[in-house]
C-alpha cells in the first residue's frame, strides 16, 4: 500500500517450474505475488501439492525462481552483489517441517546451532559458545543440551533446536514451513506460543506455511490461500475466516471440523467432489474450475487474475469480481 513503509519481503509474479523428464513442465508455483511488511506474519495455506512449500523455499533462495522475482528490502535477490547476497542468506532463514530429518544426526546440538555463526563468522571461541547457550535458553532448552545429539531429544525439543539454529544468525525473516505439523497436539501449542513470543521479542517477520487453517488464523494477521500453484484469495485473517469469497476458500473452511459438537452438527458443509488436478500441465482457465460448483464457460477458458475487491482483500474468481463491479 502506498504511504506505508517498504515491505521487508516481496514476491512479484514468482514462478517456479520444474522440467520433468519427457518434456512436461510441473508448474509448482505459477505467478504468485504478495508482500510482507516487517514484523508481520503472512500465512500461506493450501492442501498438499499446492506449491506452498516450494514458494517458501524459493523465497529464501533455496530454489532460483524460473520467473518473476523476490525482493528483499526492495532489492531483487537474483542480482545481489556478493556482500548483499551474504546478508540476504543470513537475514532470511527457514524452519523445516520434519524435526527428525532436518537435523544432522552426527552433529551435536551446539554445532548444529553454531553452524550459521561459523559460516557468517559472527563470533568464535568462548563468545560463540555463550551465544549458543543464549540461543538454547531463548527456545527453552538448557546449556548442557549443547553437547548432546539430536536422537536424544523428543520431536518438540528437536523443533526447538531447529528454531534456535534459524535464530543463530540474527535473521529478520523466517519461513516457517509447517513447523508444527509433525508434532503432537499438546506440543504444538508450546511451539506456536514460542514462535509468537520470539516474534514479539526480536521483531521477526514470518511466512507461516501450513495446511492447518485454525492454527494459521491464530498466528497470522494476513492469510493467502493457494490452490495448484496460484493464490486464489488473500485477506486479513479475521476477515478471510468471517467472509471467504473464493469458492475454494469457502469449501476449505467449511471442511474443517470444529471442536464443539453442537456447532459442528448444525454447520453446512460444502463437500468438494474429485481431487486436486495434477500440476503437470494444469487445466487452462481457472485452476479450480473442474471442482467448482459455480464454474461457467468463462472459467474454463480464461484464468481469473487476483484482484482487490475490498480493502486489502483480493480474490481470483470471475464471479466475485463481476458481483463487485
Amino acid at each position, binding site marked *: 500500500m502506498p504511504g506505508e513503509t517498504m515491505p521487508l519481503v516481496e514476491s512479484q509474479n514468482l514462478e517456479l517450474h520444474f522440467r520433468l523428464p519427457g518434456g512436461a513442465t510441473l508448474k509448482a508455483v505459477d505467478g504468485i505475488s504478495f508482500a510482507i511488511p516487517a514484523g508481520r506474519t503472512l500465512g500461506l495455506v493450501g492442501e498438499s501439492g499446492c506449491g506452498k512449500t516450494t514458494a517458501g523455499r524459493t523465497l529464501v533462495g533455496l530454489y532460483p525462481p524460473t520467473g518473476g522475482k523476490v525482493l528483499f528490502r526492495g532489492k531483487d535477490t537474483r542480482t545481489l552483489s556478493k556482500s548483499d547476497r551474504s546478508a540476504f542468506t543470513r537475514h532470511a532463514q527457514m524452519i523445516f517441517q520434519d524435526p527428525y530429518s532436518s537435523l544432522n544426526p552426527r552433529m551435536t546440538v551446539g554445532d548444529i546451532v553454531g553452524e550459521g555463526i561459523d559460516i557468517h563468522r559472527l563470533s568464535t571461541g568462548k563468545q560463540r559458545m555463550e551465544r549458543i547457550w543464549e540461543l538454547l535458553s531463548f527456545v527453552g532448552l538448557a546449556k548442557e543440551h549443547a553437547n548432546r545429539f539430536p536422537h536424544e531429544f523428543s520431536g518438540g525439543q528437536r523443533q526447538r533446536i531447529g528454531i534456535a539454529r534459524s535464530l543463530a544468525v540474527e535473521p529478520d525473516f523466517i519461513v516457517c514451513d509447517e513447523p508444527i505439523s509433525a508434532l503432537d497436539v499438546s506440543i504444538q501449542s508450546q511451539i506456536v506460543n514460542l514462535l509468537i513470543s520470539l516474534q514479539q521479542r526480536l521483531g521477526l517477520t514470518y511466512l507461516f506455511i501450513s495446511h492447518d487453517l485454525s492454527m494459521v488464523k491464530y498466528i497470522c494477521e494476513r492469510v493467502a490461500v493457494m490452490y495448484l500453484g496460484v493464490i486464489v484469495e488473500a485477506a486479513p485473517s479475521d476477515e478471510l475466516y468471517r467472509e471467504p469469497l473464493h469458492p475454494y476458500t469457502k469449501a476449505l473452511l467449511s471442511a474443517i471440523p*470444529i471442536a464443539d459438537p453442537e456447532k459442528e452438527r448444525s454447520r453446512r458443509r460444502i463437500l468438494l467432489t474429485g481431487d486436486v488436478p495434477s500440476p503437470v500441465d494444469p487445466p487452462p482457465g481457472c485452476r479450480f474450475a473442474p471442482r467448482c460448483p459455480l464454474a461457467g464457460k468463462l472459467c474454463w477458458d480464461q484464468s481469473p487474475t487476483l484482484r482487490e475487491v475490498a480493502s486489502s482483500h483480493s480474490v481470483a474468481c470471475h464471479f466475485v469480481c463481476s458481483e463487485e463491479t
Partner: protein
Amino acid sequence: MGNLVEIENLSVSFSTYGGSVHAVRGVSLTIRSGECLAVVGESGCGKSVTAQTLLRLIPTPPAQISGRVRFEGADLLGLTERQMNAIRGDQIGMIFQDPMTSLNPTMQIGRQITEGLREHHPSMRKAEAKRRAIEVLAQVGIPEPEHQLKRYAYEFSGGMRQRAVIAMAIICRPRLLIADEPTTALDVTTQAQILELIGRLKEETGMAVMLITHDMGVVSHMAERIAVFYAGQVVEEGPAAEVFRRPSHPYTVALLRSRPRLDLDRSQSLLSIPGTPPDLFAPPAGCGFAARCGLALKVCRTHQAPPFALKDSHHSAACWLHHPLALARHGEPTRERLEQEVCHAR
C-alpha cells in the same frame, strides 16, 4: 442397546532391548452396537494398541496382554487363531491410517477388496463376489466402480485409496468398524469427504464405529461417546456432548484448549501444556498427567485415581479432584477453574 465390545482392565506391554514398555495400563471400555466411540489421545497413549488388541493383531510374545476383551460375549483373548480368523475382517473390519501403505501395490483393487469375501464365504460364486465388490465400491463413492476392479493402488489418489480401504473393511458387513486415524494422512477437503462417508455407512449398515483420532474437531463431527486416553489409561469417558460441555479431567481441558478454534476470533488464547508425556518404560506410580498438571495434589503423584462418576450422567473422570473429599475441600473442578490453573496461559 447391548454392549458389542467390553474391554476390562486391559494391559499390554512389550518387551524390548531397552526394557518393558507399558503401552496400555488397565483400560476398561465398552462399545454399544451401532454407536460411534471416539478414542482420543496423543501418539504413544495406547489408543492404537488397544484397537489392535481387539483384532488380536499384536503377537504374544513379544507382547504380554492381560485383562479381558469380549466381543458379542466371546472372550477374544481366549480364542484360537482359527476362531479369531473367522472374526477378523468379517465381524470386525479395520481401516488403517495410511492408505498408501495399507493396500498391496501388486494386487488389483478388485482382488484386494474381495479377499475378505473369498476367505469368509468360500462357497460364494465369483460373479456374486464381483457384484458385491462393485456394489461396495459404489457405496464408498468411487466413480465407475466396474472399471476400477482391474486397477492398481498407485493409480488412485490418496482419498480414493482410503475409499478403497473402507470398501475392503465393510464388504463383509462387519458389526464393528475400527477406524485408526482414518483421515490423518489426508487433506482437509478429503477428510471431510471421508468422515461424511464413514458417518453415512454407519447409518446405512448399523455397524458400530471405533474412531481413533487425536483431532478433537473430527471427534465432535462423528462421536456419540468419547474416551480420552493419556499414557496408556482412560482418563475421561462419557457422552460426546457432555465431554465437550463439561470436560472434567485436567488433561481433557488442556487438550481442548491447546488447539485454536476456527469459529473463535484471534483474541482466543492458546494454552501450552508444559512438559511431555511420561516415559512408558517407567510409568509414574500415580496419575500419568500429574507432572504436567497445575492442580496436582499429593495423592496424584503416588496413587492412580479410579474413574469417578460425575453427577447426573454417564460421564466419568479418573482424577482425584473428583473424589468426595477433594470436592468438599476444594470445590467443584469446573472447566473455568481447570483452564485457569492447569496450564500456564500465554
